[in-house]
């Protein structure tokens, strides 16, 4: 019995040893790609020809976007048998709290979706690779919109490849404005008058978010831009938030809130759109996601959905918030970089790119000149139905701006965007009764403390 046991132990020991030897052999035979594989980045597959595997994380969770991105990635994989990209859906909610730890532990992706201020944060980890070569080649072929590239260009490099842009404009219900005999506003004065005239009983002239949220940050920033106060933080992190034009923008926003539903200070992204589609609010300031749901949710024809650029203040400038979403490269493996270059070439080919951007028609806008003219973009059923509205958005995108990226690139902008200081400044007025001037002073102090 004892002898038998010893035999089993010896056999199991030998098997284990063989496993270790086999594993070591298979590591050595994969052209070094397994070192990265151990970090969760690449898995070489010994099927004769080596396949470069890439992981892409994106945070566009709605099913239609997931499906379209997968379609694009599958198309690329089919056209490139030596490369396999796996697209994994993540959440923006985890992007700040979990991704950095995963990346540092070697479990991050090779390609990571981003927005400008998120790039400044992830760059602190020292893993973001410059994409100058990729941008140079894509720019020569497709011509990027300057406003889409600018927020990713600093410290002598470009840190992400912009893939689609988002811009805000003033949406209006054509049926409600026509019934009241009001023209779509082009100035702040006209906007305020229209909002007031369209408010009565439980109908409101405009629906604005006023909670502590990114939604409020962004709509407020469109007012800062049109007030002429788009610079809030410079490239050397000097805070220039507290000025007369910023105060004017906050006062205007606060005035407009009188013509917005009473629970506006709990609104984020969805509520103004819901009020707008329900016909409870006649105007709203947002991006292009209004296109795809308008008819179904409002029961009104597409022609009732109007959009104009953000109204401008006296002495202000045309524009609104605009930012591009991009993709960061987090691997320095040469094989993977070559595969990534191929992927971007495929993605930006006009016949592919229009389809990619229309993962969310109207919300995602092309960032290249030929992408903006591609049949694959304009032939989408939603885009073709709202062609004139989309043209307004594309025009607005060329005049867009993003806080922290207008006067050099602030490396600390994430610390202003994260706690929503732009929105919190408004809360000082709406909840604590401060004047616009005092609230902006408060905001200046908070932002200074955050970036010091």
């Amino acid at each position, binding site marked *: 019995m004892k002898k038998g046991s010893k035999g089993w132990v010896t056999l199991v020991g030998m098997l284990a040893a063989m496993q270790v030897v086999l594993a070591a052999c298979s590591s050595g035979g994969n052209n070094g790609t397994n070192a990265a594989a151990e970090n969760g980045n690449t898995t070489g597959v010994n099927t004769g020809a080596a396949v470069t595997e890439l992981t892409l994380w994106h945070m566009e969770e709605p099913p239609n976007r997931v499906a379209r991105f997968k379609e694009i990635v599958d198309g690329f994989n089919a056209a490139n048998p030596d490369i396999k990209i796996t697209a994994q859906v993540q959440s923006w909610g985890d992007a*700040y*709290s*979990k*991704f*950095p*730890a995963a*990346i*540092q532990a070697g479990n991050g992706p090779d390609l990571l979706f981003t927005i400008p201020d998120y790039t400044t*944060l992830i760059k*602190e*980890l020292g893993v973001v690779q410059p994409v100058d070569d990729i941008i140079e080649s894509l720019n020569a072929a497709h011509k990027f919109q300057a406003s889409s590239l600018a927020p990713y260009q600093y410290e002598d490099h470009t840190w992400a490849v912009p893939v689609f842009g988002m811009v805000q404009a003033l949406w209006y219900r054509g049926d409600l404005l026509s019934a009241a005999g009001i023209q779509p506003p082009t100035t702040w004065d006209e906007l305020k008058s229209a909002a007031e005239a369209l408010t009565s009983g*439980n109908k409101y002239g405009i629906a604005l978010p006023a*909670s*502590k*949220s990114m939604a409020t940050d962004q709509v407020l920033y469109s007012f800062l831009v049109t007030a002429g106060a788009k610079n809030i933080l410079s490239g050397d992190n000097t805070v220039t938030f507290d000025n007369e034009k910023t105060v004017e923008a906050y006062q205007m926003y606060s005035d407009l809130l009188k013509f917005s*539903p*009473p*629970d506006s*200070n*709990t609104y984020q992204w969805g509520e103004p759109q819901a*009020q707008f589609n329900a016909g*409870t609010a006649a105007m709203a300031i947002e991006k292009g996601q209004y296109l795809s749901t308008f008819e179904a949710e409002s029961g009104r024809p597409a022609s009732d959905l109007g959009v104009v650029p953000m109204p401008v203040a006296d002495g202000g400038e045309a524009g609104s918030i605009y930012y591009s979403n991009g993709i960061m490269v987090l691997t320095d493996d040469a094989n993977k970089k070559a595969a990534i270059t191929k992927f971007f070439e495929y993605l930006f080919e006009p016949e592919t790119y229009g389809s990619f951007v229309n993962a969310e028609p109207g919300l995602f806008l092309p960032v290249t000149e030929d992408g903006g003219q591609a049949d694959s973009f304009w032939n989408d059923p939603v885009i073709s139905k709202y062609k004139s509205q989309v043209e307004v958005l594309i025009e607005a995108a060329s005049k867009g701006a993003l806080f922290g990226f207008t006067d050099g690139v602030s490396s600390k902008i*994430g*610390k202003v965007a*994260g*706690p*929503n200081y732009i929105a*919190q400044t408004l*809360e*000082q007025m*709406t*909840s*604590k009764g401060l004047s616009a001037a005092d609230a902006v002073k408060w905001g200046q102090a908070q932002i200074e403390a*955050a970036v010091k």
Partner: protein
Amino acid sequence: MEVLGKNNVLGKLVPYLLVAPIVIWIAVTIFFPLFNVIKESFYNTGFVGTKGSYVGLDNYKEAVTSPAYWEAWTKSLVWVLGNSIAQTLLAFAIALLLNKPSRFANWARTWMIIPWVIPTIVVGIFWQWIFNGSYGIFNHVLMSLNLADKPVNLIGDNTWSLPVTIFINTWHWFPFMAVIVLAGLSTISHEIYEAADVDGANKWQQFWKVTFPSLGPITFALGVVGTLWSFNIFDTIYILTGGGPAGATTTVPVFIYQQAFESFQIGKASATSIITAFFLIVFVSVFIKYGTPKED
């Protein structure tokens, strides 16, 4: 047995080997992360994953001198007291009502626990619907009864948001307390009440002289556990108000979350957590020392 007898060292090791897995588990899941939080509290780490530089006690100094931290403590105290009082009164009242054998009591005991079993996220969603300032049923009722001429926005109101959040949390958790109190009531012998009846004690006197003292150990346990539990509630508040408006519902846990994951100040958030944990440990020690029911 033969081996154990011959080798006493192995015999002594066996108990340690048996408890080793759970000790290792606790070390890995509690002490290792706790050690990391303590370590981070001495660094100016920005956000998870980045490396900060050593700043000594600076984070602690900033935390204790931060008006926002003490404001959050004020909110936390109001939150804990509000919840404790409301939940205790409600739980005792319901438990006393249901402590009589009747068909209604049996039915109510089952259905009473529904708020408790509803996930917090669902609680948040449907109370937001009820109190919604545009189309919530609460406003509909107020306006139908001419009690308000325009919708009120309780969750988004600087004055009302904290009381309303306390109300919702009380609604969510009082069944748990009621069940515990009911369990305590069932342990009191009927003979004591019969003796009190014979002695001429009325219902009120029976409650104060028999029921309440008998529930001492349960009240004490609920006092400690409930206070800590209530203090550490984050999800309900964050779902309903996000700590707003303008910080009106920013209790200490919400404040720490905002420091860590909105302002990206993991170092400061760690120091704030350690200080807060210290205060809670002091509270528990004092409560246990002076609040433990005395054995007669």
